[in-house]
């Protein structure tokens, strides 16, 4: 059961983040003020994938809550940190972000740190 929940978390998170990043890149730079908030809310409503990404995020959130109830945090946190690597790879090939050696090395260091922290 915990592996099923983990799979749900990983896929929902990865899908949600990719869709969100894709849509936000297309929507142009947002601003942080009152008018920016109104524009952002309009963007969320008008872009279908953004709504889908929030739904995926909610699925991942509730699955994580369920996982924490049946498995220790020391399993849940490092296992869900696996989304890191998957998302960085997909960001390179799907979103066409430039992931150079330095960024890849830094991401791996962070992953190692998260796994150590959760033990």
């Amino acid at each position, binding site marked *: 059961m915990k592996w099923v929940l983990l799979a749900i978390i990983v896929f929902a998170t990865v899908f949600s983040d990719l869709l969100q*990043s894709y849509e936000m890149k297309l929507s142009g730079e947002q601003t942080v003020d009152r008018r920016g908030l109104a524009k952002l809310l309009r963007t969320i409503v008008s872009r279908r994938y953004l709504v889908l990404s929030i739904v995926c995020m909610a699925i991942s959130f509730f699955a994580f809550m369920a996982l924490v109830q049946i498995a220790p945090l020391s399993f849940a946190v490092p296992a869900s940190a696996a989304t890191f690597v998957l*998302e960085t790879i997909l960001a390179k090939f799907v979103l066409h972000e430039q*992931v150079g050696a330095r*960024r890849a090395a*830094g*991401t791996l*260091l962070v992953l190692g740190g998260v796994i150590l*922290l959760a033990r």
Partner: protein
Amino acid sequence: MAGNRQHPVSGLTSLQTQSYRTHHLVRSARETASRVVPVNLKTLLLILAVIVFNSAGNLSLAYGMRHVGESVGLDPLGYIRVMLNPAVAGGIVLLIFWLLMRMTLLSWADLSFILPLTSLGYVLAAVLGYVFLHETVAPSHWIGTCLIFAGTMLVGSTQSKTTGCSGVSR
């Protein structure tokens, strides 16, 4: 834009106006160039806010859930009852703001840039637990914290946005 401003001094020759415009063009180009270097203050501040709102939201939510005293199963009414708890409601509000700020951040920078940087929240949680809750931190935890910090610095030194606005459709 400075270039569009009406020049207060009348009687400039067209050549002088031309050089005035060129000067401003050069300056604005220089400003654009300086904006492209790895990461600007605006982005860093928003990353910090995203980390703080996520940690505070999760903390408030966890605190509330622990004090509600009933386990929420698949009963939707149970979720509604739980949300009436102030700590849970506050946590949800903080997380809604976290989501909105993270979306804004994603419009400014790469996903592969934001992910490692916002993981500084794990470091924040460990440090806060050590300072305020007097939790013992095992040596492996300090090593983990250092690894995350080093990794974050490494990623933070790369270009924060490597795709244009229409970069995805390329």
